[in-house]
């Protein structure tokens, strides 16, 4: 079994691995959806199908000692950051072996070994925390960056405004990444927000911003690299807006019937996995046979992760009382 850190490092400079990890995320979400429908997962889930390029772009540009504050929609970014399908699925199933020990669930992914802070289920919850992590790095004179990843609709919450302003005035090494997947729950972004290009809000804080095609992993990497470089240089924060699309419904059983006809199909033509596939084929490092082999491997990998997670033990009553407070060193 590879550790999270090993799985993270395995992506380094390895384009095929990016593609494979994207396949893993896609397959993982497909199975999650299936398991939820079958009643084998409780609560709620928020799938990230269609956003794999963004997740991989983040994971491959950041270092494992950089940190990310993300949201309830984080299966993909967790896998991209290096967590195993088993660790994520076990968490979704509430097992003791899950990345949060089974007390978190689908909305709360975490792994300190790769800088994945506990993801927040509160809109805007993670932004000030990423700012604070960046503050620590600045004080500690470390070259790390803090990243907040959140949705388009989250740009309307007060914490967004306050976080960007504070980061700007303190010139913190933090990057705010808007995953603009066009919807906040069942509401199209234009119904809740009077401007289309959300990154333009950076102007309110004299902060540089970047708009990027979130379906293109290379584009995401390039934009993130620019922002990361700025942060590591000590030149402060950046607001990045990645234009993506939520292929699935918002959560659970949502069929997304509120979508205008043809919209999904339009975006599916720009499926990030498809785009990566085409790019790699063009570069001559991927072909149909390899694709098939990889897909089979991934199907099996995710399947056995699920089988394993299902067989895993549940946390005990005692576990529920652990980690409420950190005990003091005596």
């Amino acid at each position, binding site marked *: 079994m590879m550790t999270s850190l090993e799985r993270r490092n395995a992506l380094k400079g390895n384009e095929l691995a990016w593609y494979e990890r994207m396949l893993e995320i896609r397959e993982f979400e497909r199975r999650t959806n299936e398991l939820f429908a079958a009643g084998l997962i409780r*609560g709620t889930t928020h799938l990230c199908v269609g956003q794999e390029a963004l997740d991989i772009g983040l994971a491959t540009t950041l270092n494992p000692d950089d940190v990310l504050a993300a949201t309830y929609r984080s299966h993909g970014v967790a896998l991209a950051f290096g967590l195993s399908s088993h660790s994520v699925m076990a968490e979704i199933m509430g097992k003791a072996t899950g990345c949060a020990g089974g007390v978190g*669930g689908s909305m709360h992914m975490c792994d300190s070994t790769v800088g994945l802070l506990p993801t927040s*289920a*509160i*809109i805007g*919850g993670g932004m000030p925390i990423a700012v604070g992590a960046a503050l620590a790095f600045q004080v500690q004179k470390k070259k790390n960056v803090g990243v907040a990843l959140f949705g388009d609709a*989250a740009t309307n919450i007060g914490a967004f405004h306050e976080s960007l302003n504070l980061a700007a005035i303190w010139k913190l090494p933090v990057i705010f990444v808007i995953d603009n997947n066009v919807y906040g729950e069942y*509401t199209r972004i234009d119904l809740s927000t009077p401007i289309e290009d959300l990154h333009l809000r950076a102007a309110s804080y004299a902060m540089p911003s970047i708009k990027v095609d979130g379906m293109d992993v290379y584009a995401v990497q390039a934009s993130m690299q620019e922002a990361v470089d700025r942060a590591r240089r000590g030149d402060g924060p950046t607001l990045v807006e990645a234009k993506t699309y939520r292929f699935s419904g918002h959560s659970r059983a949502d069929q997304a019937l509120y979508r205008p006809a043809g919209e999904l199909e339009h975006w599916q033509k720009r499926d990030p996995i498809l785009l990566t596939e085409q790019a790699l084929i063009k570069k001559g490092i991927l072909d149909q046979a390899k694709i098939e082999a990889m897909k089979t491997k991934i199907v099996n990998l995710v399947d056995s992760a699920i089988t394993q997670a299902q067989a895993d033990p*549940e946390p005990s009553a005692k576990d*529920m009382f652990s980690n409420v407070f950190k005990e003091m060193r005596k």
Partner: protein
Amino acid sequence: MTAMRFRQAIVTALSDEMESDERVILFGEDVAAAEGVFKTSEGLFDKFGPVRVRDTPISEMAFTGAAVGAAMMGMRPVIEIMFMEFLGVALDQLVTEGAKMHYLSKGEYTVPMVVRASCGAGLGFGTQHSQTLENWVAATPGLKVIEPSDAQSAYSLLRAAIQDENPVMFLESRILYAERGEVDTSLKMEIGKARVLQEGSDVTVVALGNMVNVARDAIADAKVSADLVDLATLVPWDRETVLNSVKKTGRLIVVEESPWSGGWGSEIISTATTEAFSALKCAPFRITAPDVPVPYNGTLEARYIPSAVHVSAALKAAVESNQVLKPWWITEGVSK
């Protein structure tokens, strides 16, 4: 009498109020076109249109405050905070602004608004979407707090809340949304009046929201003769009904989904002890959730919530031998 689900009782109350009073407007995240994530505004957008039923951006502070301002200008806004936790980004507007405007204006302005919020554990929504959090709002002079336990009280109390001239926090046990009950739409209920759902002689059980149902099952299971008091309104709570009951039975158990520390049940015990001390035959006590964040895992979450089995044992201990049943995490030795 009509059989309907708890969530339909909410819809019906909203609809009936909107029909009878055009000052009533409704807004919140996905309450209009999508009819609410818990379908608690089904049909209202179609019926009352986009002026009176509105989707908001994800901006709890702005839309809670917008309700305050609209109420002061003569509307009767009802807003939906999807999960009670989300009030954590907007508490100021309800508690520090809305609840104080009547006072600060010598009574010139009134703030007739209702903040509906779903609350409670049991559905696997994890630690940031499963608390009841009455404590955030309960010590706010100027704010009423209601928490119905079934479709009938949801219907009647929501109507009363909308008709009230004051800001009202209306907490809905999320786990009850799908539960069915008989509703008499002509039945009025008064804010501040507890419901004695069942009468008995040996013990008083006080509960709120879904815990009323747990308490009912427990009483049946324990086969004790109990007064079951559904508090229904937490602020201002019905001291008279509770005290009369305790004076009659001499025993008091409060069942609450709040944590062991800081939960609202302490106030019931404390008041009853002060006011009915000489009537008490044994120590009153609370049955609560433990002092932990709500765990996601289903088995743990089920243990987190007070269970009928445990409450039943507590009832027997009190009635049969005047004993206090300690929390399970203490008796089982899993925590202090």
